[in-house]
C-alpha cells in the first residue's frame, strides 16, 4: 500500500473543511513555516452539502443588536443544552468571519448604501442573518473553494473516500483512503487530522439533505472510542417540499411568509407562538419566526387533528408568500421560486407552497472540546459532524453557516499549531491498521452474502422515521433500536453486484450504509435513554412530556462497542453564564430573559 507523509489531513471539502484548510495555510504562512495540507473529499468540494444552505449566516451586526442577545437566543433556542463557553466564543467571532467572507468576494445582499443587509430568522430576537439572496450556502461554498485556489500548499484529493482514521496510543496518526477513480488504497500519515464530514440527515427517509450526508466521519471517530454526543437531537426543518424533501428556506418566513393549515388558518397561534402578527409584518420570535423544533411539532399536532391538506401522498400545510409580490420574491427568494416551479409545479407568486417537515440537521456529533479537539490527540472535528456544543437541543436557523466558519477556522489553526510540536506517530501498528482496511475491502468484494444495501438502507431510513421522528415514544424507539441491531447483523452478510475497482459507487453506498447503521444506533439509544422532552427531542410517554432539568440537564454520550450494543453515559453541561429558565416565544416570551 502506498504511504505518504502529510502534516494536516482535512477530511471533507465543504464549508468547514475549506475554512479549516485556508486557516491552516494562513497560520503556517504567518509563522514562515512550510506545511503540507491535504484536503480530501468523496466529492468535488463544490458538491458538498454546504452548497444547499439557503437562508443565511448569523452574526451580531446592527447597532440595536448585542452579543448578549445572540448568546441568549442561542442558549434558549438550544433549551439550555448548549455549552455556554462555546456559545460565547462563537457569538464573539461570527461577525469577523462573515466580514472575512465578504473580503474574499462573497456576494452578500446589500442595502442601498453599500453595506451588508440582514434579514429576520426564526428564534432570533433581532434581524442578524447575513444572506446572499436565498443561495447563501452556495455563494459561501464557492467563495471558499475559489479562495482556496490561492493556496498552492493546499493539495486537494477530490473523490477520495476515507475508510478509517489511523490511531496509535490515543493519538491520531493519519487516515486510510480509497481513491474512487481506481479503487487504490493509500495510507496518509499525518500529525493532525480534521474531520469536516457533515451531518447524517440521510439516516431518515424524508430529509432535505444531499445523498452524501451519511455521517461517515462521525462513525469513524465513534469506532475509535470518541463519544457521539447529543445524537438524539435531530432537527426537522418545518418546510420541505412534499415528495422530494427539497428544502424551502426559513428565510421565506423571515421575509414575511405565513403558514396556514388546510382551512387557511394560521395555526401557530395555537402553539404558544401567538398572537397572530399582521400579514406583511413579521415579528421576531412570534408565529412563523418561532424556532424550528416548535414549528415542526405544531405541524405534527395539526396532522393528528386532521387539519393538514394533501399533496400527492403527503400531508401538508401551506407556506403563503403571495402577499410579498413578484418583484420582491424574485429578488429575495429566486431559488425558492425556481425549486417550487420545477419540483412541484407551483408558482409561489400565485399559489401557496405545500410543505411538510423534513429531517434537516444533526445537532449532535463527534464530541470535541471548546478548541475542536476530540479525545484522540490531534484529531479535530468541525461543522455539522462535530458536537462542539453550540446548538444544544435545537439549532437556530443561520447559526450553522456561521458555525462552520468560526469553528472551521479554529480547527484549522489548532491543527496547524500542533504540527511543529509533534513528530509523526511511529508505530508498527499502523501497517496493520492499513492492512486491516485492505482486508475489509477485499472481503466486501468477495463476500457471497444475500443482503443488498438497497433493502437494508430502505428498512433503516423507514425505521428511523417511524421510531425517532418529530414525536417519540419508548415503544417505537425500542423497536427501531432492535431493527438497527438486526440490520447490523444482516449487514455482515452483504453482497456487492459491482465487482469493479474503478468508480465503484455501489461499494461507496455499502460503506456509507455501514457508517449510517452505527450512527443510527447512537441516535436511537440517546433518544431512548433521554427520558424527558427538550428542544427537538419530544416524547409522548406519560410523565416525559416536559423538560426535566433535575435529571437530564446533561449531554448524552454514546460509546461504540465492537462486541455488542453501544453504551451511554451522561456529561454535565456548561451553564455558567445563563441559568436554565423557561423557554418561551410569542407573547409568552415577553419579559422572560432571553
Amino acid at each position, binding site marked *: 500500500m502506498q504511504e505518504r507523509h502529510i502534516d494536516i489531513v482535512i477530511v471533507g471539502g465543504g464549508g468547514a473543511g475549506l475554512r479549516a484548510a485556508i486557516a491552516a495555510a494562513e497560520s503556517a504562512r504567518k509563522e514562515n513555516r512550510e506545511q503540507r495540507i491535504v484536503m480530501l473529499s468523496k*466529492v*468535488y468540494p*463544490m*458538491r*458538498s*452539502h454546504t*452548497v*444547499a444552505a439557503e437562508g443565511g449566516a448569523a452574526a451580531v451586526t446592527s447597532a440595536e443588536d448585542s452579543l448578549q442577545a445572540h448568546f441568549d437566543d442561542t442558549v434558549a433556542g438550544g433549551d439550555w443544552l448548549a455549552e455556554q463557553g462555546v456559545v460565547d466564543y462563537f457569538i464573539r467571532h461570527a461577525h*469577523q468571519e462573515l*466580514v*472575512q467572507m*465578504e*473580503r*474574499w*468576494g462573497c*456576494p*452578500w445582499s*446589500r*442595502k*442601498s*448604501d*453599500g*453595506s*451588508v443587509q440582514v434579514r429576520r430568522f426564526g428564534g432570533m430576537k433581532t434581524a442578524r442573518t447575513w444572506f446572499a439572496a436565498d*443561495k447563501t450556502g*452556495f*455563494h459561501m461554498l*464557492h467563495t471558499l473553494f*475559489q*479562495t482556496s*485556489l*490561492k493556496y498552492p500548499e493546499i493539495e486537494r484529493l*477530490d473523490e477520495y473516500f476515507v475508510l478509517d482514521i489511523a490511531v496509535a496510543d490515543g493519538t491520531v496518526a493519519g487516515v486510510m483512503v480509497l481513491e474512487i*477513480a481506481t479503487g487504490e488504497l493509500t495510507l496518509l500519515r499525518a500529525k493532525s487530522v480534521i474531520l469536516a464530514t457533515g451531518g447524517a440527515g440521510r439516516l431518515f427517509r424524508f430529509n432535505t439533505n*444531499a*445523498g*452524501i450526508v451519511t455521517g461517515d466521519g462521525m462513525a469513524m471517530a465513534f469506532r475509535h472510542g470518541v463519544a457521539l454526543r447529543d445524537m438524539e437531537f435531530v432537527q426537522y426543518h418545518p418546510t420541505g417540499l412534499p*415528495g*422530494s424533501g*427539497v*428544502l424551502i428556506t426559513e428565510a421565506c418566513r423571515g421575509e414575511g411568509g405565513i403558514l396556514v393549515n388546510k382551512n387557511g388558518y394560521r395555526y401557530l397561534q395555537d402553539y404558544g407562538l401567538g398572537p397572530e402578527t399582521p400579514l406583511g409584518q413579521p415579528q421576531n420570535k412570534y408565529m412563523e419566526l418561532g424556532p424550528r423544533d416548535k414549528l415542526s411539532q405544531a405541524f405534527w399536532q395539526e396532522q393528528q387533528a386532521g387539519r393538514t391538506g394533501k399533496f*400527492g401522498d403527503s400531508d401538508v400545510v401551506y407556506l403563503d408568500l403571495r402577499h410579498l409580490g413578484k418583484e420582491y420574491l424574485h429578488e429575495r427568494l429566486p*431559488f425558492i421560486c*425556481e*425549486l417550487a416551479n*420545477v*419540483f*412541484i409545479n407551483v408558482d409561489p407568486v400565485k399559489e401557496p407552497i405545500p410543505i411538510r417537515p423534513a429531517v434537516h440537521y444533526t445537532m449532535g456529533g463527534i464530541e470535541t472540546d471548546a478548541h475542536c479537539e476530540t479525545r484522540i490527540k490531534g484529531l479535530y472535528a468541525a461543522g455539522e459532524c462535530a458536537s462542539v456544543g453550540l446548538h444544544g437541543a435545537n439549532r437556530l436557523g443561520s447559526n450553522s453557516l456561521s458555525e462552520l466558519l468560526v469553528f472551521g477556522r479554529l480547527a484549522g489553526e489548532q491543527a496547524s499549531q500542533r504540527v511543529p510540536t509533534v513528530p509523526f506517530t511511529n508505530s508498527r501498528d499502523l501497517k496493520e491498521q492499513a492492512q486491516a482496511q485492505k482486508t475489509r475491502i477485499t472481503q466486501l468484494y468477495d463476500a457471497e452474502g444475500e443482503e*443488498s444495501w*438497497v433493502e437494508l438502507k430502505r428498512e433503516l431510513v423507514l425505521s428511523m422515521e417511524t421510531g425517532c421522528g418529530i414525536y417519540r415514544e419508548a415503544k417505537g424507539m425500542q423497536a427501531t433500536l432492535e431493527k438497527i441491531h438486526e440490520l447490523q447483523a444482516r449487514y455482515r452478510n452483504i453482497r*456487492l*453486484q*459491482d465487482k*469493479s*475497482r*474503478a*468508480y*465503484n*459507487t*455501489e461499494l461507496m453506498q455499502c460503506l456509507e450504509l455501514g457508517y449510517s447503521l452505527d450512527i443510527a444506533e447512537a441516535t436511537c439509544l440517546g433518544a431512548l435513554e433521554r427520558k424527558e422532552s427538550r428542544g427537538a427531542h419530544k416524547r409522548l410517554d406519560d410523565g416525559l412530556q416536559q423538560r426535566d432539568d433535575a435529571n437530564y440537564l446533561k449531554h448524552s454520550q454514546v460509546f461504540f462497542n465492537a462486541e455488542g450494543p453501544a453504551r451511554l453515559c451522561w456529561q454535565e453541561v456548561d451553564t455558567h453564564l445563563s441559568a436554565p429558565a423557561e423557554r418561551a416565544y410569542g407573547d409568552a416570551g415577553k419579559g422572560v430573559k432571553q
Partner: protein
Amino acid sequence: MTIKQISIQRYLPEQGSAPYWQEFDVPFDDSTSILDALNYVKEELDGSLSYRWSCRMAICGSCGVMVNNTPKLGCNSFLREYQGPVKIAPLAHFPVEKDLIIDMTLFLDHLAAVQPYLINDSGEGSDTFKQTPAQMEKYKQFSGCINCGLCYSACPQFGLNPEFLGPAALTLAHRYNLDSRDQGKKQRMPQMNREEGVWSCTFVGFCSEVCPKNVDPAAAVNQGKVESAKDMLIGIFKS
C-alpha cells in the same frame, strides 16, 4: 405508474469493452426525474451502473448528463418531458471514465487558470467593502455558476480544442473583473487574451441555452472579448 424504456450508454473499462447502449424499463410519474430513473436502475436493476449525484435540487452540479444529445442536469429534467425515446449518455467533450462518469480534471484546471478569487491588496480588514446593489448587479448573474460543466458539453469549440478555457472559466474570470471590490483584472487579462481564451469562442450560444442556472456564459465570454480588445488596444498604444 406507467413504464418507460430508457437507454443508457454504458462504458466499463475493466471489462475492456467499447461503449454500448443498454435498455432499461423504468416506472415513472409526473415527478420522476432523470436522476430518479438512474437511481431506480441502480437500486432495482443493475447495481453496477455508475453516475454522480448528490443534492438532487439543482445546486451541487454533480449530475450532468446528455439526454438525447442535449446536456441536462439529471435532477431537474423529468421523464414526462420526453414523449419519444430517452437516451442518456455521459456529458460530451470530456473523457469518459465509466458509464456516465466523466473526467472533470481539465474543467477544474481551466477554472483555476483564471485566478477566480477576489484580488485586492488592502489585506485583512475588520470591516466589509462597500458595494451598492447596482455595483453588485453588474456581476451577480455571472456568480451563479454551479460548475456542472453542461456548458462545456454544449460548446463545439471546447469539443474541438480542449485547451479552450471554455464558458464557465471565462465567465468566472469576467465575474471577478466586474466586481467593484476586485483589482485583479490586469492579472487575469493575459489568460483571456490568449487564443484559447475568449477568442476561441464563436458565439454559438448553446452554452447559455443549456445553463441550468441562467448564468448566460455566452454573454460573459463575449463581454470578455470587448474587454480583451480594449486591453490589447491599450497595450498597443502603451508600447
